[in-house]
């Protein structure tokens, strides 16, 4: 190599350095612009095409549809009295009386609140176990906690009937123990347990991440200053967990406020929620009322999220957490009460968790291998035969698996930068940033039925530009829609850590000349890495479990995913659909383990 060559090389290097520096300088604004454009195109615009129907009726602007809903006792119960001019006190009296009327909106909020409480109660012990104890298979178990999140509601219904039904596993066990029978179906309790099945893992997952970010030295300092273990927990650890627990509860409320199929499958129409009526109205093309009702639904959900976000901003956790708390062995090191009691509590929790989380999934697996004459692999043979013989317009198992994985990875890769960018932008100091944050969470809170119709009208039907109709659909659109649904999780898991980031770290890095994007990738993200991985896992899970946007945007059977295949395989026998359900379970379980291992989300950075 000559000197001249070397000169060009170093010149090129300098050039590359410059390009990279410029890229880094502009990375944040560019990513932010891209995120906003994607959200507008794939979410806000399509949804707006539906929402506008609530205020523009037959070409005239009006609020009469909202007035109609807010004064209808069927929807708002005794609160309708307020609109009719009754005094707030007498309305309150009505609501506290035994024959109160909650209305559909009130009842929906009521069951969502109960579901949130149940999810926290069932989720916290899991977080405690996963964050504070060491045992074989812990990391795998933690990766799998998110599994319920991806299960289609029809599968959960099958599992729940088989577990909690009259002839279910639970009653069989209770009968063997001579404890009598419970009749859980079809009741509000069954619905709430099913909601906890979906959402307790969410609470567990985010709380575990927060717990693992608690810095051991802070606890040690408190202890060395004479605090009892209990005091140290309450003063040092717990305050770092509250935001995550509340976030889990708030998200659970939002999801279960929009609940739809599961409530009718395990409860029945007497428990119909707001979303049931949104569906019904849309089916009958009563778009004005449907859109208005969906907006009422959205306002309640976003209002709650906004309240949570205000709280989160005020209670940000100062995490400088480099060294997580050491885990204890699950096997009690001594026979002292202090060692035995928490483990005994966990054992009791383990039994409950077996019933609520494991039994329904096990029932589903069992249904996939049982036939009229006992155990059989016939349903899996059905899948194989389907793969070999299906017509082009029929869904095939392998295509569904492949598409789910591709879309899942694609939307994860898209949701991560989107989520990080929005988290960075909403943790800066400016007026109204929490409002922006709340609006950014809308994909979690808007009725999925409205989103489906919006995508149809806004994208699939397209817009006419100069005589050509520009329509959007296909695999890329599906990935984008999934990413839009999943990115709020990344924001929610990453933002609390950024909020509490020691600003001196950021400032000194900036003072040394690092561009903002560099600071984020080299300083801030590593400090909240478990949260980033948790967000990534959620983004993936949302994509894998997504149904309605997928079927709206797919342009062919070859773009269908596992949940769509399951829906197609439902028939008089549960076998084929449950076999596909087990495929979904196995594939996603493997994916979660891989995501967590690749992410090294065990403080191992």
């Amino acid at each position, binding site marked *: 190599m000559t000197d001249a060559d070397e000169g060009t090389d170093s010149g090129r290097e300098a050039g590359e350095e410059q390009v990279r520096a410029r890229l880094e300088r502009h990375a944040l604004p560019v990513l932010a612009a891209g995120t906003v454009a994607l959200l507008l195109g794939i979410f806000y615009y399509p949804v707006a095409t539906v929402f506008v129907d609530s205020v523009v009726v037959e070409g005239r602007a009006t609020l009469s549809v909202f007035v109609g809903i807010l004064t209808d006792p*069927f929807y708002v119960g005794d609160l309708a009295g307020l609109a009719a001019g009754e005094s707030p006190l007498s309305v309150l009296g009505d609501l506290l009386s035994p024959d109160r*009327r909650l209305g*559909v909106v*009130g*009842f929906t909020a009521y069951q969502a609140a109960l579901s949130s409480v149940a999810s926290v109660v069932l989720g916290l012990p899991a977080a405690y176990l996963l964050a504070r104890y060491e045992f074989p298979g812990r990391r795998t178990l933690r990766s799998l906690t998110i599994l319920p999140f991806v299960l289609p509601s*029809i599968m959960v*219904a099958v599992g729940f*009937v*088989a577990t909690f*039904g*009259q*002839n279910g596993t639970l009653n069989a066990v209770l009968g063997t123990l001579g404890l009598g029978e419970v009749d859980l*179906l*079809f009741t509000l309790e069954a619905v709430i347990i099913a909601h906890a099945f979906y959402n307790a893992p969410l609470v567990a997952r985010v709380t575990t991440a927060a717990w693992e970010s608690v810095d051991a030295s802070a606890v040690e300092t408190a202890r060395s200053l004479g605090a009892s273990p209990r005091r140290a927990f309450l003063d040092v650890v717990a305050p770092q967990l509250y935001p995550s627990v509340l976030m889990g509860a708030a998200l659970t409320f939002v999801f279960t406020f929009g609940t739809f*199929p599961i409530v*009718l499958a395990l409860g*029945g*129409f*007497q*428990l*119909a929620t707001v979303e049931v*009526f949104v*569906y*019904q109205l*849309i*089916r*009958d*093309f009563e778009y004005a009322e449907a859109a208005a009702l969906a907006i009422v639904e959205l306002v309640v959900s976003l209002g709650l999220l906004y309240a949570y976000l205000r709280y989160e901003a005020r209670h940000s956790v100062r995490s400088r957490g480099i060294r997580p708390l050491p885990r204890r062995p699950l096997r009690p090191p001594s026979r002292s009460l202090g060692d035995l009691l928490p483990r005994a509590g966990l054992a009791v929790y383990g039994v409950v968790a077996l019933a609520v989380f494991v039994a329904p999934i096990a029932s589903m697996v069992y249904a996939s291998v049982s036939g*009229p004459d006992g155990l059989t692999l016939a349903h899996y043979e059905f899948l194989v035969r389907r793969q070999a013989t299906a*017509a*082009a*317009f*029929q869904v095939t198992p392998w295509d569904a698996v492949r598409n789910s994985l591709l879309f899942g990875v694609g939307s994860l890769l898209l949701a991560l930068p989107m989520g990080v960018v929005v988290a960075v932008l909403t943790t800066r100091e400016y007026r109204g940033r929490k409002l922006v944050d709340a609006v950014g969470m809308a994909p979690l809170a808007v009725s*999925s*039925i409205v*989103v*489906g*119709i919006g995508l*149809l009208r806004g994208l*699939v*039907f397209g817009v006419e530009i100069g005589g*050509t*109709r520009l*329509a*959007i*659909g296909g695999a890329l659109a599906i990935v984008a829609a999934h990413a839009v649904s999943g990115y709020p999780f990344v924001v929610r898991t990453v933002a609390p850590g950024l909020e509490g980031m020691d600003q001196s770290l950021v400032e000194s890095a900036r003072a040394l000349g690092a561009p903002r994007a560099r600071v984020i990738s080299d300083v801030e993200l590593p400090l909240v890495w478990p949260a980033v991985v948790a967000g990534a896992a959620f983004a993936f899970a949302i994509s894998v479990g997504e149904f*309605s946007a997928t*079927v709206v945007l*797919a*342009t*062919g*059977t070859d773009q269908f995913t596992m949940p769509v295949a399951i*829906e*197609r*395989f*439902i*028939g008089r*026998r*549960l076998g084929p*659909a449950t076999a596909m359900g087990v495929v979904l379970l196995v594939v996603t379980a493997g994916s979660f383990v891989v995501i967590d291992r690749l992410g090294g989300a065990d403080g191992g950075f």
Partner: protein
Amino acid sequence: MERRSFLAAAGATVATSLTGCSGIGTTGETSTESGRRTLVVGTYSPFIDAPSSSPGAWLKEQFESEFDARLVWQTPSNELNHYIERRKAGVDVEADLYVGLNADDLVRVDETLDESLFADAGDLNGQSDVKDGLSFDPEGRAVPFDTGYVSLVFDGTSTTAPETFDGLLTEDHAGDLITQNPSSSDTGRAFMLHTVKQFGADGYLDYWADLQANDVRVLGSWDDSYSAWSEGEAPIVTSYSTDRVYADRYDQNLEKHRIRFLNDQGYANPEGMAVFEGANEPDLAREFMQFLLRPEVQGEIAVRNVAFPATTNADLPSDYAKFALEPPEPVTFTYDELQGSVGEWVKDWSQQFAQN
């Protein structure tokens, strides 16, 4: 016959076998290689893709080989509403005809759209063979191609279903019946309409209040309720009178799959087909409709869709009637009776049943 508009709650589209038909615009592939014509047929997905059997693939093969045309199935996730939505938005309807609409679908089409979604069927060979009482479109657009009867299915090893509607109110049958949401399920809607038929528009809500007091369960979809019923959650479910065909096919205990026609009546749910106004291939579409009315094709559709033929002269296997039961007296509402009423009936029912 297991239509599942419920699960596919939102949106729509489209499992066509057209490749890359989205992106820009429409399907547009009317003329393809060697000038073969293409017929795009919209339908509901179990018609072409069900885990047991479905007529779609067979129909496509037979039709293509005889007519030198290409048949493309389209199954939007919200079925007929997809096309109503397109017409409302002023976007081309990309299919030539729709297969699988019933009377209240047609009412919804006409109440939602100002202009017609469907064209006149015209004179079709075979139309005169359609059974009396099944034709439901007074304007002659939709022609029935099969029918189902909604009935009770009960587990004879644990109960004997009552013979009358009032029998369902007795204490013996408290908590015995699982049925479906009338606004999202065909069977649930048929059962509710049957109660309107029986008790009148003034009386059906009272009957339902009594039914609710007797612990009836109304679940969201046929799938939910049939699987809960199969698990023994309750011994009676609203379903189709062809239930024993499946039970026989899967070697199940027939005693656990017994049919009851309340008051000796079954609610008929004829399924029709109609050509879209402005179809690219209206003539081919009508040829397809005539093809569907042929005796041998009628028999195949009935067997593969596990339903009953719409015509009197269908070629059915001689033992078909052994497991596929027809009610002594079919009942149904006509288009004219449903128009302007069915929406209110469902709405009033919902508001009464979900009172919180």
